């Protein structure tokens, strides 16, 4: 095509939505670009020291953590997913959703609780004491303990992604395989595992991103990771430059993961899911003894990932409630919920704009760049915080120099905090919205347009009423994520603002882990109610379609 024709086409297809789309994507990209551009300023004074003495530690620790967590979450996640989707056994239905519950316990809270369970005169030593062994405890606060608490709170990601696969695709293939004379057990390894690999790895990559993002658990267990290193360089050493260099290495690791995930999916084609009725009938009913074993296998991760830590927290709450519960604490709780509520609304709104602006935009390559708008979820919260902090300081300085304002209006204010949250959690809101809008046949909005309604009217009259369920789940998911977010909040929160997550972290860091139980439990309970509610909603939708 001639260059002038290209220009005319570009001019014809460019509309205001294209511009708004670019604005949103740019706003999301700023924190990441900041980290990359600040690299050119050179490292801080301690950089050589870090490279010589601790960088290897960070790398080895991150590697060991990732490896141990991978093994653990795959063993637990895939086994339980396989059992609940292929076999019939007592309490299968209940276990099916109970297995998601550990996700409602943030890793740092899991870390506090297990430190207590295995610590001196904890539940574990009491239990052993009953056997006559006195003062026995296990040193849990090391990299192995950290791997355990991270894995047990994150394995549901792998459980959910593999279960979805098993339910949707495995049944008819398995039936074919068994007709060919291969046993169920053999078929699993020969047929299902290789087929499910992309789904399992997709869940695993989410787990590893969370592992790299974790700050609370690692710092409490005293394990040096990139995130704790970034915190130390910035706040203890006072060297933002060094923090940025560490962030850059962490970014490379994260992008490596993303590329790996995309690469391993390169040959995968999606086949449509079969109706759920068929699959219910085809569950195998094993012998009574096996059924019992299966129930116990599925119960184990629920027990150690949810009931045990929650029991520990309840125990602590009973000891410390009167001390912790105060008007201050109620204030923090309200603040925490208020921030989460407002930010979730903002995030869902922006995700909605991103989704529809990219639909209304007609320039092909911009549609692809809009995908960059949701990359924030892959970036550790610590890095986003730094990426927002630096430009907000510059902008504040500039505003003061220009005489527009006399005090900091961005840095260390709610505006910067909310902005950072939106960047980080945009993808969380975007995905349910996207999938519910994909369910609407394209011809519906097309026919509305042919019938004379523009983009906005079509949105309000047709698309909005049809994606309401998606909006609700987007809001709930973001709300929970914000409520339990720790590293980003620690760095960005205004001085006079506090959240439940930060309060729990402060108690734990000040050797008052028992007092951390109440805020922790509140976070878990909040994360729990929608988990049950969402599960019901999803079931209802599945039955309707």
């Amino acid at each position, binding site marked *: 095509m001639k260059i002038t024709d290209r220009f005319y*086409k570009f001019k014809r297809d460019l509309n205001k939505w294209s511009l708004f789309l670019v604005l949103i994507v740019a706003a999301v990209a700023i924190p990441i670009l900041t980290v990359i551009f600040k690299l050119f300023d050179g490292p801080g004074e301690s950089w050589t020291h870090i490279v010589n003495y601790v960088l290897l530690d960070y790398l080895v620790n991150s590697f060991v953590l990732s490896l141990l967590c991978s093994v653990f979450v795959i063993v637990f996640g895939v086994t339980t997913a396989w059992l609940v989707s292929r076999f019939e056994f007592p309490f299968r239905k209940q276990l099916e959703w109970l297995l998601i519950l550990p996700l409602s316990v943030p890793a740092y809270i899991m870390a506090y609780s297990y430190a207590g369970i295995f610590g001196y005169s904890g539940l574990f030593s009491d239990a052993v004491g009953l056997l006559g062994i006195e003062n026995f405890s296990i040193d849990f606060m090391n990299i192995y303990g950290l791997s355990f608490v991270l894995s047990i709170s994150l394995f549901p990601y792998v459980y959910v992604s593999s279960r979805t696969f098993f339910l949707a695709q495995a049944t008819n293939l398995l039936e074919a395989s068994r007709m060919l004379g291969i046993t169920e057990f053999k078929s699993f390894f020969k047929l299902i595992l290789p087929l499910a690999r992309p789904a399992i790895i997709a869940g695993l990559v989410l787990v590893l991103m969370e592992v790299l993002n974790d700050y609370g658990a690692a710092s409490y267990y005293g394990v040096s990771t990139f995130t704790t290193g970034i915190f130390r360089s910035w706040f203890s050493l006072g060297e933002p430059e060094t923090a940025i260099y560490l962030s850059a290495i962490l970014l490379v690791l994260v992008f490596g993961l993303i590329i790996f995930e995309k690469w391993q999916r390169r040959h995968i084609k999606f086949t449509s899911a079969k109706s759920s009725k068929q699959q219910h009938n085809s569950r195998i009913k094993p012998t009574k003894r096996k059924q019992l074993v299966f129930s116990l296998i599925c119960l184990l991760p629920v027990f150690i990932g949810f009931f045990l830590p929650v029991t520990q927290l309840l125990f602590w709450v009973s000891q410390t409630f009167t001390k912790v519960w105060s008007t201050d604490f109620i204030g923090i709780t309200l603040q925490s919920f208020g921030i989460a509520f407002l930010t979730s609304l903002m995030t869902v709104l922006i995700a909605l704009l991103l989704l529809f602006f990219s639909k209304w935009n007609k320039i092909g390559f911009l549609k692809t760049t809009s995908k960059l708008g949701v990359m924030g979820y892959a970036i550790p919260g610590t890095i986003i915080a730094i990426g927002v902090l630096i430009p907000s300081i510059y902008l504040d300085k500039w505003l003061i120099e220009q005489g527009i304002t006399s005090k900091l209006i961005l840095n260390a204010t709610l505006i910067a905090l909310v902005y950072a949250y939106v960047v980080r959690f945009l993808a969380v809101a975007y995905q349910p919205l996207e999938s519910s809008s994909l369910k609407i046949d394209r011809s519906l909005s*097309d026919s509305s*347009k042919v*019938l*004379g*309604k*523009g983009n906005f009217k079509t949105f309000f009259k047709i698309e909005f009423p049809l994606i309401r369920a998606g909006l609700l789940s987007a809001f709930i998911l973001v709300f929970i994520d914000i409520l339990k977010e720790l590293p980003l909040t620690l760095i960005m929160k205004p001085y006079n603002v506090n959240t439940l997550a930060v309060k729990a972290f402060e108690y734990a860091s000040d050797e008052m882990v028992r007092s951390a139980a109440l805020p922790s439990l509140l976070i878990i309970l909040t994360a729990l109610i929608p988990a049950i509610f969402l599960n019901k909603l999803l079931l209802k939708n599945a039955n309707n379609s």
Partner: protein
Amino acid sequence: MQTTLNIKNLTKSFDQGKVKALDDVNFFVNKGDICAVVGESGSGKTTLIRLIAGLEELDSGEIHIENKLVASIKKNIAPEKRDVGMVFQEYALFPHLSVLENVVYGIKTSKAKKERALETLELVGLKGYEKRYPHELSGGQQQRVALARALAPKPSVLILDEPFSNLDAMMRYHLRNEVFNIIKKTGVTAIFVTHDTQDALAVADEILILQNGKLVQKDEASELYKKPQSIYVASLFGNTVQLNKGLQTAFKCPLKEDCCHAIRNENLTVNKDCDYVSEAEILKRTFLGTHSQLLLKLDNGEHLTVVTNEPVLGKTIKIGFNSKDVLAFDE
């Protein structure tokens, strides 16, 4: 005669030019005519109507509706401003709106919207169904609501995308005549896409054949049947047998070398006198209800499959055809 739709040098490709969906297509449709667009899947027919409706942007060429330029490389009038009506393949009825709300949706006049909607519903024979929701209707009723909804705003051009592909054969036959009677009554210019040539032959004033994004022929139905310009066009309207060298020897009918010849299956005769005849041995008979299919071996060993409704006895038959039925194409 007035032209309602005029398409000039229309070209469109996808995937940055890798897939050419439409290649230099030119045609026009007269006011009040019904024009069918026929082609295999992937021939570009859906792209063509989406471009006319304004749901896609063209790469080059022009589209005029009622002598007004609506799309070119410099201009693209939004679908909502094009005065085009469209009946979608899956009907695309809004599931959360009632039948009446669906039909009212596109009416632009500020008053008497409801009257217009009711009038259109009556036209399609759905009076009394206003309060129902789409999922409470049968496939045929949904189809008629979709038609009413598209006609209610009185568009200049009505587009129908595979309008009968979701219906079973009996339904299809009834609804086809009904729908096009309604369209004729309103006098709207209509363009409809189909892969079923029976639909096209039955109701279209003119038929447009697309192949790999190119317009290969545009004619009235009877002309198209009698004088197809390529074997592709001929084969769209029923089974055809290409008369290759082997068959020409078997039937002793020397034909010109520089063109390609074919004969329609229905023009092959069994045990009758005609211009060219060959003895044939029946290798296999397949009974298909009203007719049967025969696999034949001709004199010189050539194989030929024939469908006939004549009762055929014995092991050999005489098969033949007349020279007036031979189709010739330059290829």
